[in-house]
């Protein structure tokens, strides 16, 4: 593995970004800077554009105006840049999206082998070390369909980590899980945060936001309404919309 020389600037910089789906203006003038090692939680009502925003960062969606700069590289339609950025940015999805035709170990090894040109024994050793990290090394030879939801999501996290990303994006990683499995996934995310990983998480786990986030970003109708440190965000939100949202979500 040859990680490119880390740049000195912020991990992610979004400047005046807009996106439309046809006539529908889904993201409006998004400005957000994520420093290296910073943990950001994004929340907001359904349909507010949270997923769309983080999916723009690794080009699963294309933005139409403004700039996105990831680790010093501006995202354009240049395929080489997109590839480069995707290698440095890991993503975890709400629906896990593990590859059902491959074993857990093969899921983890796929990208290191085909993207990083890593020899299989080395890739497998790496994969096992990450499976131990998410505490399911004994599941390596099973297929995703044979695991519980919480185990699948931990495999998905390990799979992203195998590419040794500098930034991790999470899109509601615990929303498809039963309550008893949420904790096992959050524990993994907390330990990642403790290791200094730059994280951008869309989640409604407010406990996680309080304890782990450096900043909480609130989105509504395609706009960033508020971005503040957790104490301020939860105790003294500046906007009426945020207050309303918090009163709903915290009962």
């Amino acid at each position, binding site marked *: 593995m040859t990680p490119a020389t880390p740049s000195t600037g912020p991990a992610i910089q979004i400047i005046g970004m807009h996106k439309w789906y046809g006539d529908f203006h889904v993201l409006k003038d998004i400005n957000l800077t994520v420093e290296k090692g910073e943990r950001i939680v994004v929340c907001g009502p359904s349909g507010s554009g949270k997923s769309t925003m983080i999916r723009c960062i690794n080009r699963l969606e294309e933005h139409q105006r403004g700039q996105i700069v990831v680790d010093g590289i501006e995202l354009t339609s240049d395929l080489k840049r997109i590839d480069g950025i995707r290698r440095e940015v890991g993503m975890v999805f709400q629906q896990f999206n593990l590859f059902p035709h491959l074993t857990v170990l093969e899921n983890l090894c796929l990208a290191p082998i085909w993207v990083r040109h890593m020899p299989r024994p080395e890739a497998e050793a790496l994969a096992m070390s990450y499976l131990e990290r998410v505490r399911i090394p004994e599941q390596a030879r099973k*297929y995703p369909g044979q695991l519980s939801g919480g185990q699948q999501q931990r495999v998905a996290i390990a799979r992203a980590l195998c590419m040794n990303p500098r930034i991790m994006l999470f899109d509601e990683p615990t929303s498809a899980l039963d309550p008893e499995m949420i904790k096992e996934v959050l524990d993994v995310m907390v330990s990642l945060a403790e290791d200094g990983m730059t994280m951008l998480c869309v989640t409604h786990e407010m406990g996680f936001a309080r304890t782990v986030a450096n900043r909480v970003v609130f989105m509504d109708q395609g706009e960033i309404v508020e971005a503040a440190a957790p104490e301020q965000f939860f105790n003294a939100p500046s906007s009426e919309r945020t207050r309303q949202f918090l009163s709903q979500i915290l009962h």
Partner: protein
Amino acid sequence: MAVEAKATSSAPRTPVWRDPAIRSLAIQALLLVVVLGAGWWLLDNTRQNLNRQGIASGFGFLDHTAGFAIVMHLIPYSEASSYGMALGVALINTLLVTSLGIFLATVIGFFVGVARLSSNWLVARLAAFYVEALRNVPLLLQIFFWYFAVLRALPPPRESVTLFGAFFLNLRGLYVPAPVAASGFGLVLLAGGVALVAALGLGLWARRRRVATGQDFPAAAVSLGLLIGLPLLVAAATGFPMSWELPALKGFNFQGGLVLIPEFVAMVLAISLYAAAYIAEIVRSGILAVNRGQTEASLALGLSPAQTLRLVVVPQALRVIVPPLTSQYLNILKNSSLAAAIAYPELVSVFAGTVLNQTGQAIEVMAITMAIYLSVSLAISAFMNWYNGRNALRER
């Protein structure tokens, strides 16, 4: 245990006619009797008819002299050969059209199916047009189109399109020089075979090595070199133990050399282009059946779109693709019998046609023909089922 025992003892006895197991057994037995009875009646009837016409039954006729020529034969055959040899020639011709048809239809079908999903508007439209145009015209008409409209428009033998004085294209077909073996030619053939096996092995090895060590190997280039180089080297070492028989115009037609007859070309073109349209739709729906999230997860890991298709999408799509693909392959086999309409010498036109007419052995000829189609079909199905079984998903 105790609860179970109590439950059985207290359950009221099911009357025999309401027991589903016994019922289905009775129905099956009845059906078997009906089928066997009908079969016996048919057979007996035909045998009586044949007896009345004085035709001997049995397969002895296969050894008799056929007395007719077949334009395309891949094994030695002449008018003096037996009906059995004619059957062999016809079967090989059927298998040739079928296997070439399956191969080409699969390649074209995958290509068109993927193209139909392309984000490039023109490519997607063209692929859609291909599918709609080809699957909405009867296959027989397409065979006629290629045969009469395209290939029949070629010049007569005397005005052949000539290349290097060795290749001749006219309405009787494409004539190419044929290698004539001298002693030692077997070695060259052997070298070719060895090179082919080596190239296949090399491809597998290169992929394994790629996965095991992360290093690329130019397998395609080396294979090509091997395939051309090795036979050439052996040929040079043995002093080129072959001569070429050039096709030559004798009277109204060419003699000698190898000929690719227009009936064969028309048949392969029509059948593979037609089946490819269906296979394209099967491939498209198979790919669409794979969750979009799979593609996104793969792209997010940094795999390229081509790698995503090859390593993530297609392996999953195959589970949906293979069963309907099997029936397309069977259709290609069965549709190859339409070649009778343009007198391509395959199983139906030669054996169930000419041989049947000459010998009158209706039962034997039909039985052999059906048995052949049935066994080839079953072989194709068995292979495809085995392949699909390998791809089955493991769930909890």
